[in-house]
């Protein structure tokens, strides 16, 4: 069950928030999705990351405003009390609606929208958790940041951007460098010469050995890209056939697949087995030496005794 809580009613939120889990855990508190100019729609406002919804609703609101104006224009000449009231009413409402649409649009024009980022990340998290959030509202159980937070974030962003614009040029690490161009020209020249050489050799029969290509079927064992296969009905006869094959085997796509790595680091316990063995051997050696010494002294003593 959704429970609608009007935005910016902090008292309500707190009491509901604390009571709810204990009293009825099935109820999720639904907070109105935030907006500046679409407040009129109350709980119908779409999640901030559902841009088609927001733009659509804004357009609808603008259209409603325009219809109101049109109504005023149609009954412009009527002078009865009802039509006068109607005129005033529709003019005021129409301008209110259009003004609000304008507000919303100008908010949406700002390239940075904290509400959007928030709603999007929450939606993605929900999807990662295996839930299926509503396309219009996003996950139902989150509370969007207040307008105050939103405007603070936007203010920060504006300040940051400003300071960044002021020092943009100075902080670049890789700037234009005439060396880059020289290197490129050099490599290009070298390659051109090499290509001509290889081409000449390839065109001359019997020159393959010069290139180290004694076997025409020689395949680099490390190069494991699957071979190019033509579709059954494609014999590369027309330009269109060619484009089809080229697109199917887009060199850049193949390269992208080839250069996608998984990097894993497996640590190892630093162990001193070898050293210990050495140590053991040393101790054993020492003991043997000691034994010998003792034996020798004992022998000496016995000798001594015997002599006595």
């Amino acid at each position, binding site marked *: 069950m959704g429970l609608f809580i009007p935005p910016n009613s902090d008292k309500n939120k707190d009491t509901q928030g604390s009571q709810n889990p204990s009293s009825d855990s099935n109820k999720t508190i639904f907070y109105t999705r935030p907006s500046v100019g679409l407040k009129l729609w109350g709980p119908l406002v779409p999640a901030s990351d559902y841009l088609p919804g927001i733009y659509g609703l804004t357009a609808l609101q603008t259209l409603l405003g325009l219809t109101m104006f049109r109504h005023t224009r149609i009954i412009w000449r009527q002078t009865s009390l009802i039509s006068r009231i109607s005129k005033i009413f529709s003019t005021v409402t129409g301008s209110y609606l259009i003004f609000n649409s304008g507000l919303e649009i100008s908010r949406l024009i700002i390239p940075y929208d904290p509400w959007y980022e928030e709603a999007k990340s929450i939606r993605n998290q929900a999807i990662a958790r295996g839930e299926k959030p509503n396309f219009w509202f996003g996950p139902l159980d989150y509370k969007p940041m207040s307008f105050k937070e939103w405007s603070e974030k936007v203010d920060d962003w504006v300040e940051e951007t400003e300071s960044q614009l002021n020092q943009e040029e100075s902080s670049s690490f890789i700037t234009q460098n005439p060396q880059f161009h020289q290197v490129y020209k050099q490599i290009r020249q*070298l390659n051109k010469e090499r290509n001509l050489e290889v081409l000449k050799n390839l065109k001359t029969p019997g020159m393959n050995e010069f290139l180290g290509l004694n076997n025409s079927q020689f395949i680099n064992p490390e190069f494991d890209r699957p071979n190019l296969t033509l579709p059954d009905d494609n014999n590369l006869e027309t330009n269109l056939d060619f484009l089809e094959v080229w697109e199917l085997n887009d060199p850049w796509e193949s390269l992208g*697949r080839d250069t996608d790595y998984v990097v894993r680091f497996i640590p190892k316990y*630093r162990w001193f087995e070898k050293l210990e063995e050495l140590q053991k051997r040393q101790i054993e050696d020492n003991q043997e030496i000691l034994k010998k010494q003792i034996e020798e002294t004992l022998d000496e003593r016995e000798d001594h005794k015997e002599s006595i």
Partner: protein
Amino acid sequence: MFRSCRQLRGSAPILRQLCTSRIQTGPSLRFSSHYARQHASNYGRRSWSKIILTTLGGIGLIGLSAWWVYWPHHTFPKSVAKILRKGLWAESDKGEKDYQTALKHYLEALEEADKFELDPLSDEYTGIQLKVGEMYERLNMNQDALMVYSEIASAYLDALTTPGKIPIPRRPHIIQKDLRVVVKIVELNKGNPYASKMLLMTHFLIAQEEVAKRSKTVSKLIKEEKEQILQEVSQQQSPYSNPIKEDSLKVGEDEKIVVIEKNRDAWEPFRDELFNARDLYVAISLATGDLQSAVRTKIATTEWMLNADCDPGEILMSQANLGSLMYLQAEEFEAKEYRAIKQKLEESKIASERFNKKSCLDLALKCYESVLAFSKQLPAQLRREENVEESIALSTYGLGVIKLHLGELDTAKNLLRESRLRAKGSGFNDLVVEAERELEKLGKEVEKLEKENTQKEYEQERIKKLLENKGEQPDIELDIQLNKHK
């Protein structure tokens, strides 16, 4: 209504009066029905032309989108296309995989393209170059292939750093391609890791600058790292210090609770390529013994991956790898501690190394534990994904190794066994081997303890032992695995 009134207004004042009086006196219902009738008749008259126009517009739109989807977007000059056709044929299974002939045709195509002055930055031109490179590689002429790829990369570098050379909307796509080609160069240029490192760094800094330009929130993150890099480059050999900030690991722990700002769009379309290049940079840094750059880069990468909204499996693997790096760093500090004791340095210096080691071990534990904790919160379906399973296995293993280091042998045993099981389950065979080796070490350690009849040994004991040995320390080991993504 208005229109009819206006017409009347011009013709005769009496009629006008009539008209207005009629409106004034008549009830509004009558007015609106009149209006509706007129509107309907207007609509009826116009409807056919409208329908036709709408239909035509609709057909046009559908046709346009169909053209966009299905029509090939490459535009080669006809003669170039003709030569390329021969090349593709020779290379294909139908042309008996004759790579030499294919190479010949591709080289001719390149010449032809030069004649037409095809833009060397265009996808068509670089596409032919890639084909030439591929044929060189297939024919085991890697040096030539390397030169071809280098030409593309240097052309991109030159163009990307020359303002106005590439229109702004096209830059991200060029950067994406640039990163791919650079990784290829690194792959072919294995004998020269230092050059590879510089190359990777130069090119990923350009990519990062592009991201920074697009998202102001990300630019802060990136700037911080760049300043560190610049410092390192200028100082050449900076003193070895603890590069870990206390807050840099917060991300993994409470990712679910704190909503971190995500700016996926700012990183696209070269997000995966960029992180790929950075991971390679880390691996090469490690291989060349530059642990500091490796750790710093990995920390930043993991942080950025969260911001860029990468897949959970990728983030978890990155975090597990970071744990391994932290453990490696801890070992490094332990070696320093040992050396400091051996050289009889001041007590404060020994203590600082010990402190560094301790904090690195703690961070490594935190990394691994956060991987396990976070993976538990993932839905079952995601948890079964290969890289998630592998991250869990690797983290369990890593925890086991740390416990072994800390002398908590029972815990270590359980963890290592679990990791072996998990590694088997996810087909992570190298880890199975490593886990078995570690279990063997552990078994011997247990044996020794039983022989000596002592209780578990702790950190200080380890150092003491090392000192008693008097000889050299054992090497610090880490297995770097670079596998191509399947």
